[in-house]
């Protein structure tokens, strides 16, 4: 009897989760429907975001491209910046120092990084990273906004390091000691062991860690909002070949940021388009995750062979 009740409870809670998820998607979809109808494919391909057009006439211009660009550029750029740091932290903690005071200190510092609320990162980015980037911009003759895609990526990179670092460290632990010792006995140096034994073995796990970090970067809202400059259009420098290098320093905006910013004071199609933006963000995250998983599966096989 007890056993049956217990099982029924488990099934019930499973069902509740499912109903909740279905409910969330359903409400999002229903709320996004008016904008899907009104905007059609211009939402996906439009490069201008003009909420005012909702009230002015027939040509509603609410395009998601600037925000897609912002989300994808900041998250991949931040991933790129974070990789060397995540790797070295993980290697240091996983291979070089396995115990001791400094190990415990560094390990808990990395864990602490992941526990800091994102608004604190935003504030720190605004008061520390922005002036540094601005000083660099003044020196190099780029308009000294300080805020922008680069600043947002730098802040994001620091935020996602703990995620990839801790997973990579776990994965490094899984590399069989026999393999490493065999390599050492053949006279390999530590660097050679890392490069030729550990890395190939752990490749898929490392990719999984990076994927998790990327997922975190894609959805991050608050910290990015505070330092990205919130310009709702594609950077002007993107269209001219001489100035393309300035693009990463120009202000932009991301999908989650525009939702957070405009949600409060929106209504009608504008509100509906913001909800559609949320759905698009979920879709983009899912696609990137899917591609990542395929890659992990592939490397997983070659890693074991």
């Amino acid at each position, binding site marked *: 009897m007890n056993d049956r009740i217990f099982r029924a409870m488990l099934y019930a809670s499973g069902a509740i989760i499912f109903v909740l998820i279905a409910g969330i998607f359903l409400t999002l979809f229903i709320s996004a429907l008016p904008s899907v109808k009104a905007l059609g494919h211009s939402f996906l391909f439009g490069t201008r975001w003009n909420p*005012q057009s909702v*009230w002015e006439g027939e040509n509603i211009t609410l395009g998601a491209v600037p925000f897609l660009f912002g989300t994808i550029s900041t998250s991949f750029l931040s991933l790129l910046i974070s990789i060397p740091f995540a790797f070295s932290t993980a290697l240091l903690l996983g291979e070089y120092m396995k115990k001791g005071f400094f190990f415990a200190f560094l390990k808990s510092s990395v864990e602490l990084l992941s526990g800091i609320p994102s608004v604190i990162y935003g504030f720190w980015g605004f008061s520390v990273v922005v002036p540094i980037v*601005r000083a660099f911009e003044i020196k190099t003759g780029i308009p*000294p906004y300080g805020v922008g895609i680069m600043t947002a990526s730098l802040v994001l990179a620091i935020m996602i390091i703990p995620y990839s670092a801790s997973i990579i460290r776990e994965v490094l632990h899984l590399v069989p000691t026999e393999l490493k010792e065999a390599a050492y006995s053949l006279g390999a140096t530590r660097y050679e062991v890392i490069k030729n034994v550990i890395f190939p073995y752990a490749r898929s796990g490392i990719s999984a860690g990076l994927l998790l970090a990327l997922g975190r970067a894609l959805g991050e809202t608050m910290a990015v*909002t505070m330092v990205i400059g919130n310009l709702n259009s594609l950077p002007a420098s993107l269209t001219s070949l001489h100035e393309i290098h300035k693009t990463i320093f120009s*202000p932009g*905006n991301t999908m989650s940021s525009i939702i957070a*910013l405009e949600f409060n004071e929106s*209504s009608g199609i504008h509100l509906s388009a913001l909800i559609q933006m949320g759905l698009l963000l979920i879709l983009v995250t899912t696609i990137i995750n899917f591609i990542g998983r395929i890659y992990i599966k592939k490397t997983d096989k070659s890693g074991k062979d």
Partner: protein
Amino acid sequence: MKKKIILALSFAFLALLFACSQKPQQGVQDSSLVELIEMDFLGAGATFPFPLYSKMFDEYSRIRGPKVNYNAIGSGGGISQLIEKTVDFGGTDAPMKEEELSKAGAEIIHVPICLGAVVLSYNLPDNPPLNLTAEVIAQIFLGEITKWNDPKITEINAGISLPNTEIIVVHRSDGSGTTYIFSDYMTKVSRDWAQKVGTGKSLEWPVGIGANGNPGVAGQISSTPGAIGYTELIYALSNSMPVASVRNKAGKFIVPTIESVSASADVNLPKDMIVSLTDTEAEDGYPISGFTWIILYRDQNYGERDEKRAKELVNLLWWMTHEGQVYCEELHYAPIPQKAVEQVEDLIKLVNFGGKELI
């Protein structure tokens, strides 16, 4: 027996202490005569007047009894909650749009409570007092004037030296009533602006960077050399930010102050008080000013509301637009000018309960 006396005395002493420590407050004297009414009101809407409203509602509940809970969720939220009839009243910085009014189904009254203004703040070496005209502001925010020493700026600022640096435009990135008032002014005074940008709470900005909320804009301005942006007057005043004088319709450069903002409503106002005060004709009025309203249904007989509730709501509005106005200035809001108060009275008298007058 002795113990009891000592106890009684110490109680009396404590009571005396307590009575003395209570600061004499305005209106408290009346409250001992009038019985406090127990009632809860719920309001939601604009964030701009939130500090003033909390002060007013706090005082009101001490004097008359009714407690008012106001959620500062933004004008848009206030309007939609009123339409859904989940609140007693809404607060908004922009009058309701046609579409929203028709959704509401019944007539809605806009009662102005105070005035706010949008000021232009900047970051220049030593922050000299700056004069601006509507055309110059429009061209800066459209990206047509890009340097501080542009002749269009220097010719209205004789006597101060402006640097040859880039102007960095800062605007609000979140949807807000502040942006609405600013763009409403720009649309009135610049044909270019009207065509390219228009009026609204969230806009498609041609240049510059966005920042979240007044604190965000202020922070961005104060940390970026050569920046210019717009914030609410109360925010600029309470943070002693440099603010530009703006030339009004009468041709005077007006420093934004509580007086010059109040003065902007010193014109002939329409009966329903749904009016944009930007680019005011008042001679001493600051041109980027506007009312903030409380909105409610004209006929309070809807849902499960009773006449007593309707009456108390009207009393609350009456108090806010009369006795309550004294709290405006200490919080840097501009009170409704005396001339306009009579019109507000007529407006509040329109609120009824199933056709029955309430005041």
